[in-house]
């Protein structure tokens, strides 16, 4: 019974990354199985004055459908959504995607906190939150919100992060469920198949 309480299905994964994020995602996203039933939402900090090419770049490296998020788009399981440049990405009831041009958070738009906090409200304990390499403090509060809503939290090992500041901020604010090197996070994501995933919260 205890076991059943700790193991649950994950419907969604949120990932936040900044400096070094594209390289880190190049390790993680190809590991996603083609039969993944979870949807993934990703914020990477990039310059705000030009379009993001992330969806195009990763479409070629992933077994899953990869898209740039559109406002009001219904969430399709097994899809990877990237936040567009200069918009916050949020999850709304439905679940569906929502965008906003609200003020910058931690000097960033899209902001990881905004994505994670809204996803935590929609997916509650069926959410996995991952903070990767980055050189600012965005994401720490968002990951804490994922944790407080019963979701599972993962932080990249600071020693393996190209810029450790973001993961350190997240670590300080709320101890995560797992601190893992990139290859271990990739292994975790590879269990997101339709039969799984059975992630444990220690």
């Amino acid at each position, binding site marked *: 019974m205890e076991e059943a309480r700790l193991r649950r299905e994950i419907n969604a994964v949120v990932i936040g990354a900044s400096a070094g994020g594209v390289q880190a995602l190049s390790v993680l996203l190809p590991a996603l199985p083609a039969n993944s039933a979870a949807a993934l939402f990703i914020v990477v900090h990039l310059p705000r004055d030009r379009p993001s090419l992330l969806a195009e770049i990763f479409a070629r490296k992933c077994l899953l459908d990869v898209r740039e*998020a*559109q*406002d*009001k*788009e*219904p969430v399709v399981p097994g899809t990877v959504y990237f936040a*567009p440049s200069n*918009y*916050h990405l*949020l*999850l*709304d*009831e439905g679940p569906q995607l*929502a*965008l*906003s*041009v*609200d*003020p910058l958070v931690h000097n960033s738009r899209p902001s990881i906190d*905004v994505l994670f*906090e*809204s996803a935590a*409200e*929609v997916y*509650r*304990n069926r959410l996995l939150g991952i903070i990767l390499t980055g050189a600012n403090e965005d994401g720490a509060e968002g990951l804490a919100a994922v944790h*407080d*809503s*019963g979701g599972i939290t993962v932080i990249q090992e600071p020693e393996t992060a190209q810029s450790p500041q973001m993961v350190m901020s997240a670590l300080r604010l709320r101890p995560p469920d797992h601190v893992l090197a990139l290859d271990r996070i990739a292994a975790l994501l590879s269990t997101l198949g339709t039969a799984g995933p059975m992630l444990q919260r220690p």
Partner: protein
Amino acid sequence: MSVGEAARGREFDIEFRLLIDAIYHMYHYDFRGYASASLRRRMKTAMERFGCPTLSQLQDRVVHEPQVFAALLDYLTVQVSEMFRDPTYFRALREHVVPLLRTYPSLKVWVAGCSAGEEAYSIAILLREERLLSRTLIYATDINPQVLSKAEAGIYDIDRIAGFTLNHRGSGAISSLSDYYIAAYGRAVFDKSLRDHIVFSDHSLATDSVFAEVQLVSCRNVLIYFNRELQNRALGLFHDSLCRQGFLGIGAKETLKFSTQAGGFDSLVHQEKIYQKRSEP
């Protein structure tokens, strides 16, 4: 998830709905059709700002202190925009819409959700460059009276002008932005002759109706704050306001795809989200 967390989430949901209803009954501002994720986030920011640990406490102040509501309205509505935001949108207006606008003896343009006026002044400047402003009236509408008076003043911090200027150049400008403002005391005051062609007015896409026939509606990054129902209502208003084959511009990441009104418009410049009202069969 702890029982406490779940309860807090449920409490917030209930308090949120009650506050939205209270605002509607008390002040006749209708946020019931706003997209909930952004509005909830804005409410949380306002709770911190007003030092209210719960939405019920914020509601108490909003109901009993009209000045608190006025301040809250800023948190719930204000978008920070830029002049000539997304320069390629304005370039597309110039290349694909202006030539057709020239064929009208007089023009009306509706900037819906104009906030502090950046978009309205941008369109006025573009139309002056294209020698169309003298025969144009621009309706710039918003629900927030405080931003409307800011918009009417046409005064912006001088440190925003460098960004505006870069955007303006990217829009295919045929004049210099500095032709249109006077810099003084850290602020840029925009030319009154632009404002003479703009009517700033209180209008709600949630509760008001069509007020004029226009050739162009520009409503960018406003619909993302509405739920689908309200979005459909707003797009219906735009459709009814537009003249035959009139033009609609929406935000770069907005789409008509998920709207019941999609059939009323044809895509004109796909990349820039410029549409044209579909001719009646």
